[in-house]
């Protein structure tokens, strides 16, 4: 690294601090030399301001269709006092953006946004110091409007002060710089329109699936028809007649066709005659839950332990309640199949993908090709929504393998069956619950056991399919995500024990899907809480309030507010006077996300058609407290997504498979919720401008399955303990109840 100090700029700008601005040279120079800082501890990693005052924001967190490409600039614009239109956002480029971690866990605002706020506040402080000197005024007397600092009638712009030079300022995210008082906010907290919507609506947006590079070829993968099948032979003459086929690439059990045109690649991949060995590595789907229960446990993980549950559960005269819940295997189901482009040039790999974790992907690709990570650059380009770790990273590995084999850039897009068949899955979750009530219906003890796959400690690299099939160096992580979260409960009982039985394996390559673990665990906990309320003949809202920590005022408020919003009528659930074919019910659910952040409470209104078993969610009420709201409208959009997508998962979704392979390979066999079946949604958004902003992309999804199950119980007197609540299961459950 050889960065020149531009002496003229130092002289021109005069002040001491600006000397430090200039120390690292201009940003263009830094970029040209591959030295753009990306450390989390540097302001320059996050921000650059050009001579015209245009601000470039470098974010390791990316917009997955969630709106943070608007919300993150709102935070920076507010803190710097520049217009939103003065901000340009660079996302998820390993050469340019700091590694702020995977875009997951509802942390883009809470964590990524707050790092940006700190960088912007630090930059603003330094700019004001410098402005004060330049204008010969006291810092406290300065005003900033649209990136221009004024003292009386003297003025200097950010662009003039810093224009493309480095800030060269340190950041400590554990001790953030003083930021603006929320009462002065002009941009944060406002329902600013999303910057990406007009181009998306006019067909002008470039998704990953639209992106092209010169000289590019098209690849299509040909996956084995069974997990674990071996490639025995290929008959290349079978695709002879197809124009433009460049190469059939085989490496171990990895197989793909590369062609000049996309259609030729698709045709060739379909037409290629291949012989694969037979493989039956999956459990019998009819006995999935027995399989899960009998899977080898590698360790027991106690997530909360209060008092002595075995003593309390064994007490004479205790009213014991027991239930087992299960939650099906789900696919991410992105509407646009995964897509990536890769290019190998001069020993370096450039990968363009819609990965939510370009910094991790960079390391994974480096491992796969046994090359130093410095020689891999991963660049994010927004794709179809992923809702977690879908196939984007795998497509990136496919493209990289092909680009290496061809010596030209290769674009790979998966077909629908690749996406449904081969994206990693949300693992099956099995939960046993037990509780004891005394004669007055007070809960004496709560015990739960969760049968879930292990999560490799610190290992969140879901193995790349191409590396595994191709026999290349691959990560051996089992990575379902932090699915222990919300296994412990927010209620104060005298005796509580919650534990996870960590299974050595799970039938399908696991990964995280929106609200991983928190959704399944909250589903079981909140349904079971409802079972206890019913056993105690108590109103489910009052029953919950009775056991919430009285000091946790925000929790109590959110639950009380959803009851008010829904005009909750106090009574035990399980209506007595149901008659007719269509019966109605309502259910409540509450969650404090990960027991440390966003509070959510919901009421679901359902109708159940008894003759068919069809459940319809007619209305959904949500009270939501994520602290400071950055963008009300963007928040509502995310919450709509949580509610509607999770109704779909709860009522309809279940991976189908046989002993060899996934069989739900399209939208007919893996149906999702359609327009005629969406509910009316009513919100009470609690804004707390003086509190920290917490995540909102996932938490409200956690209360959807349980609120629906509780509402079905209210309507039918029947508990739905197995997601999805298909008509068959509803009819079956009704038989047992009767």
């Amino acid at each position, binding site marked *: 690294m050889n960065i020149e100090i531009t002496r003229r700029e130092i002289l021109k700008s005069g002040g001491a601090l600006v000397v430090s601005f200039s120390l690292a040279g201009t940003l263009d120079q830094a970029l040209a030399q591959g030295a753009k800082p990306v450390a989390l501890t540097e302001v320059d990693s996050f921000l650059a301001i050009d001579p015209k005052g245009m601000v470039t924001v470098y974010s390791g967190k990316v917009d997955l*269709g969630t709106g943070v490409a608007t919300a993150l600039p709102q935070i920076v614009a507010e803190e710097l006092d520049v217009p939103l239109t003065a901000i340009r956002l660079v996302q998820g480029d390993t050469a340019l953006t700091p590694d702020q971690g995977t875009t997951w866990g509802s942390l883009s605002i809470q964590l990524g946004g707050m790092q940006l706020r700190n960088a912007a506040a630090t930059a603003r402080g330094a700019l004001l110091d410098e402005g004060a000197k330049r204008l010969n005024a006291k810092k406290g007397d300065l005003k900033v409007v649209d990136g221009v600092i004024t003292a009386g009638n003297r003025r200097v712009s950010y662009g003039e002060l810093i224009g493309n030079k480095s800030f060269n300022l340190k950041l400590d995210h554990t001790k953030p710089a003083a930021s603006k008082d929320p009462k002065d906010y002009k941009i944060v907290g406002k329902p600013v329109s999303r910057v990406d919507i007009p181009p998306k609506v006019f*067909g002008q947006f470039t*998704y990953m699936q639209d992106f092209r590079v010169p000289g590019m070829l098209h690849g299509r993968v040909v996956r084995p028809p069974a997990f674990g099948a071996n490639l025995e032979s290929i008959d290349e003459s079978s695709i002879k007649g197809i124009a433009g086929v460049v190469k059939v690439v085989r490496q171990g059990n990895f197989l793909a066709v590369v062609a000049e045109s996309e259609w030729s690649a698709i045709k060739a991949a379909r037409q290629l005659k291949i012989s694969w060995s037979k493989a039956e590595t999956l459990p019998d789907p009819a006995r999935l839950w027995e399989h899960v229960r009998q899977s080898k446990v590698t360790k027991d993980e106690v997530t909360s332990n209060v008092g002595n549950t075995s003593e309390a559960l064994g007490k004479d005269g205790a009213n014991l309640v027991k239930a087992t819940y299960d939650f099906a295997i789900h696919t991410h189901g*992105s*509407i646009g199949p995964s897509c990536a482009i890769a290019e190998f040039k001069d020993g370096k790999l450039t990968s363009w993908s819609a990965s939510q974790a370009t910094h991790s992907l960079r390391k994974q690709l480096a491992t796969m090709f046994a090359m130093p990570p410095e020689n891999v650059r991963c660049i994010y380009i927004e794709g179809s929504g992923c809702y977690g770790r879908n196939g984007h990273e795998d497509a990136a590995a496919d493209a990289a393998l092909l680009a290496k084999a061809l010596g030209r850039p290769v674009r790979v897009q998966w077909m629908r069956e690749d996406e449904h068949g081969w994206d990693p899955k949300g693992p099956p979750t099995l939960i046993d619950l037990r509780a004891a009530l005394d004669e007055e219906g007070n809960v004496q003890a709560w015990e739960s056991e969760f049968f879930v796959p292990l999560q490799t400690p610190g290992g969140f690299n879901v193995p790349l399919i191409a590396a595994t099939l191709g026999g290349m160096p691959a990560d051996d992580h089992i990575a379902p995500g932090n699915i222990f979260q919300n296994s412990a409960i927010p209620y104060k009982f005298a005796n509580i024990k919650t534990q996870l039985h960590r299974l050595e394996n799970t039938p399908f390559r696991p990964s995280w899907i929106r609200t991983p673990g928190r959704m399944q665990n909250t589903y079981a906990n909140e349904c079971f809480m409802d079972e206890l309320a019913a056993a105690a003949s108590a109103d489910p809202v009052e029953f919950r309030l009775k056991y919430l920590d009285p000091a946790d005022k925000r929790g109590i408020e959110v639950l009380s507010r959803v009851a008010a919003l829904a005009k909750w009528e106090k009574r035990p659930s399980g209506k007595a006077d149901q008659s007719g074919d269509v019966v109605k019910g309502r259910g409540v659910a509450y969650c404090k996300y990960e027991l440390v952040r966003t509070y959510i409470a919901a009421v679901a209104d359902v109708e159940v058609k008894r003759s068919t078993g069809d459940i319809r969610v007619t209305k959904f009420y949500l009270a939501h407290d994520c602290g400071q709201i950055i963008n009300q409208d963007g928040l509502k959009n*995310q919450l*709509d997504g949580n509610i509607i997508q999770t109704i779909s998962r709860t009522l309809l979704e279940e991976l189908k498979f046989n002993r060899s392979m996934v069989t739900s390979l399209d939208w007919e066999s893996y149906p999702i919720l359609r*327009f005629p079946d*969406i509910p009316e949604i009513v919100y009470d958004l609690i804004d707390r401008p003086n509190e920290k902003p917490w995540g909102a992309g996932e938490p409200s999804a956690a209360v959807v399955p349980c609120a629906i199950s509780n509402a079905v119980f209210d309507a039918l007197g029947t508990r739905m303990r197995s997601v999805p609540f298909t008509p068959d299961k509803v009819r079956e459950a009704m038989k047992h109840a009767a």
Partner: protein
Amino acid sequence: MAQRKSLNVNGKAVQITIDDPEMPLLYALRDNLGLHGPRFGCGLAQCGACTVHVDGNAVRSCSAPLSTITSQQKIVTLEGLGTPQKPHPVQRAFIEEQAVQCGYCINGVIMESAAFLAANRKPSEAQVKEALANNLCRCGTHARIVKAVMRAAQT
């Protein structure tokens, strides 16, 4: 074998070179003409992401072989429906209602809605939902989309 094919796309006569007359229209629009509106979603006419108008009708371009399309037929994609300067009422309504999350399905939803509204002036909300029953959205933007289509219907 390379051959020429004439199409009328977004009001312009265009000629493309193709190897296979059975290639679906979608690939001609995206790969030969570089359009971004119509999108590949399933290739099975199940999700609607690829929807375009052919003579005003909403058509799944992933499953419409070029051999079935003549140079006389008017193909309109999202780009041709309206522009930022002259937006179609449905496009304007989608911006006003902020009815997009990831937006991958939005092309199909807008094209389907525009064709539906052209034939149904004052639909009920239930009719709009039925009209979109075969368009899939994974993000859960449905409620806003319905509001946007209803707004467009009133303009």
